[in-house]
């Protein structure tokens, strides 16, 4: 392991000294670790590292190939950007959690076997949950618990799948699931899909992300779902089920985004939608589709973080998160508006922004694979994406009704982080070749053809026309939307009701019966037993004992030990015998 420094180790061990550092030393240190990690990933060589044996199983701590390098590259870049965004935080807790979270995500990306993968998988769940709890308040803590519960359940399903799969294949090495899918493989798939937020396993995401801290949500938007896309691309490429679930996801998120009033929940629903493209790409499974899914994950991490940073800046400055309470901020926050819009253009796949060169690769791969329905559905979802993140959200957040909120630009480090992400969003869009060179398969795709540009602009700008015409229909409403978390939120209530009402009533009846009838009877019986014991059994036993004792005492008096007494007794005996003999004989 001399020519390989595991970036996960850098982050996880690197998190340890953070609580002991202060001021600008801490800031410098916080930036140094991600910078070193980027360097480590840039110099990494493909190969296998850290092979060993554990409980009779082959363990491979790190397996480095092109697919894992792409994800590690964007993860470490994102860690740097997220750290810059969070640099103003006075307390170290969130920095530590974020580093452990990033480190665990990198651990998953390089994991060569299922045990290593599982350990880092759970590490991600716990570290990210901290970022929700750190927000404090009843709502955030409740959401944090739900988040943790869901991910622990998913982790158990994954572990069960790993064990079954390991038993049936005799190996825990992590790679494409070959041949017939068994129960174990399906459980692993379910565990992965839960983290990818594939409906109906998606509600944890839109439940928890808007409740996280401003800086924590930026990290969360980048890592959990994208590691899930990575493991799906690694283990399940070409799984037909994923094509349809992914396509449905892309539309699912967009539909919910129409209804959403919380700015970060709206963005969270667009994570569901965008990850849908990646899941569909993995499901199609051709080289171009996997390339598309991978590159889209790369671009998505950057622009989604930028959007979350923009919304976070508004929440940080105004303390409000509902679109019905926001508006008119463009005058006081022009730089934030501009940077947010870069992210919005990138997610909407405008030419010269990153989404254009990545999302279209997935759609083109679906076209090449002769899936007309998928192409149409994904194109419709693109329209929806621009409609919400590019038009509705910025309109109601920054323009629209002026609510006369007191606002200013956020702290400089937040703007710098947003600027870094914005530069990358544009750079990837203008010069996609370096990103294409990183992809797992050779790229044979040219995004900038005339027809592709005009078609994309046509879809997007005429979506804008629809927005302008039906603006009033889109006015945010002061509501929440029911999603699949209904089942466990209401389900938990039913459980608590069963525990509270029928079970307690049964328990009370049983204890009442025992108190009014059973206990007095038992008391009486015990008292009677005691009396019989004392007056009957004890009296007899004591009487016998006393009689024996007295008899013994009397007998003892006869044993005087004086020879003359014994002689006297013998003489008396002889006389008595003679008398008896004489009388009876006669």
């Amino acid at each position, binding site marked *: 392991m001399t020519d390989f420094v595991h970036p996960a180790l850098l982050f996880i061990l690197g998190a340890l000294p953070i609580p002991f550092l202060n001021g600008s030393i801490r800031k410098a240190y916080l930036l140094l670790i991600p910078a070193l990690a980027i360097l480590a990933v840039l110099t990494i060589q493909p190969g296998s590292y850290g092979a060993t044996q554990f409980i009779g199983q082959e363990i491979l701590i790190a397996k480095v190939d092109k697919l894992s390098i792409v994800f590690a590259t964007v993860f470490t870049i994102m860690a740097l950007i997220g750290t810059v965004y969070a640099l103003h935080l006075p307390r170290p807790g969130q920095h530590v959690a974020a580093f452990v979270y990033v480190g665990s995500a990198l651990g998953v990306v390089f994991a060569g076997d299922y045990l290593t993968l599982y350990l880092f998988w759970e590490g991600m769940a716990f570290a990210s949950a901290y970022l929700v709890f750190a927000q404090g308040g009843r709502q955030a803590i409740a959401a944090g618990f739900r988040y943790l519960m869901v991910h622990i359940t998913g982790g158990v399903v994954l572990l069960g799948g790993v064990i079954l799969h390991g038993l049936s294949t005799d190996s825990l090495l992590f790679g494409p699931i070959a041949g017939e899918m068994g129960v174990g493989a399906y459980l692993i798939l379910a565990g992965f899909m839960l983290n990818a937020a594939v409906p109906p396993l998606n509600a944890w995401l839109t439940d928890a992300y808007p409740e996280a801290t401003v800086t924590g949500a930026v990290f969360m938007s980048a890592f959990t779902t994208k590691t899930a896309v990575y493991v799906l691309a690694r283990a399940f490429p070409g799984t037909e089920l994923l094509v349809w679930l992914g396509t449905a996801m892309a539309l699912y998120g*967009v*539909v*919910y985004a*129409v*209804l959403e009033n919380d700015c970060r929940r709206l963005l969270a629903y667009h994570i569901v939608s965008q990850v849908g493209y990646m899941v569909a790409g993995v499901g199609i499974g051709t080289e171009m589709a996997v390339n598309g899914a991978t590159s889209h994950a790369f671009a998505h991490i950057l622009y989604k973080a930028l959007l979350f940073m923009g919304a976070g800046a508004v929440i940080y400055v105004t303390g409000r998160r509902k679109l019905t309470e926001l508006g008119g901020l*463009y*005058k006081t926050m*022009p*730089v934030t*508006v*501009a940077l947010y819009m870069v992210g919005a253009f990138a997610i909407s796949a405008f030419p010269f922004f990153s989404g254009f060169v990545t999302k279209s690769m997935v759609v083109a791969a679906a*076209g*090449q694979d*002769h899936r*007309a329905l998928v*192409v*149409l559905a994904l*194109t*419709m979802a693109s*329209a*929806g994406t621009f*409609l919400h993140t590019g038009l509705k959200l910025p309109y109601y957040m*920054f*323009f629209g009704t002026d609510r006369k909120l007191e606002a200013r630009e956020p702290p400089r480090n937040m703007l710098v982080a947003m600027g870094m992400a914005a530069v990358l969003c544009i750079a990837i869009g203008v010069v996609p070749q370096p990103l294409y060179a990183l992809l797992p398969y050779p790229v044979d795709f040219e995004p900038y*053809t*005339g*027809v592709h*540009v*005009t*078609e*994309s*602009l*046509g*879809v*997007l*700008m*005429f*979506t*804008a*026309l*629809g*927005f*302008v015409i*039906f603006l009033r*229909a*889109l006015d945010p*409403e*002061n*509501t*929440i*939307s*029911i999603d699949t978390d209904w089942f466990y*939120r209401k389900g938990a209530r039913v459980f608590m009701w069963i525990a509270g009402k029928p079970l307690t009533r049964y328990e009370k009846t049983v204890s009442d019966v025992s108190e009014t009838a059973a206990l007095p009877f038992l008391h009486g019986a015990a008292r009677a037993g005691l009396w019989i014991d004392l007056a009957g059994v004890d009296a007899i036993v004591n009487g016998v004992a006393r009689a024996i004792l007295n008899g013994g005492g009397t007998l003892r008096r006869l044993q005087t030990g004086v020879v003359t007494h014994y002689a006297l007794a013998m003489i008396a005996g002889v006389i008595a015998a003679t008398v008896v003999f004489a009388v009876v004989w006669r």
Partner: protein
Amino acid sequence: MIKRVVDFFGDEEHANQRRRLFYLVLVLIVIADFLVHREHAEYLWDRLPGWSAVYGFLSCVLLIFVSKFLGHRAGLMRREDYYD
């Protein structure tokens, strides 16, 4: 510079300019769609110039009204204290 661009999109006084610019862009896009070279037409609609504009507009309208229907009529939208 950034402030001026952002103000252009926000200030009421530029509303007419904005509208004119927007419609001009729409027209230019449709015209350009007729001019571009189409060689890799996979599906029928790929050969129709202006299709993407129609499809984009229809998608937008469909998404808005289907979602609002689901929200209001199918009961997806609830009061904020629904879970309390």
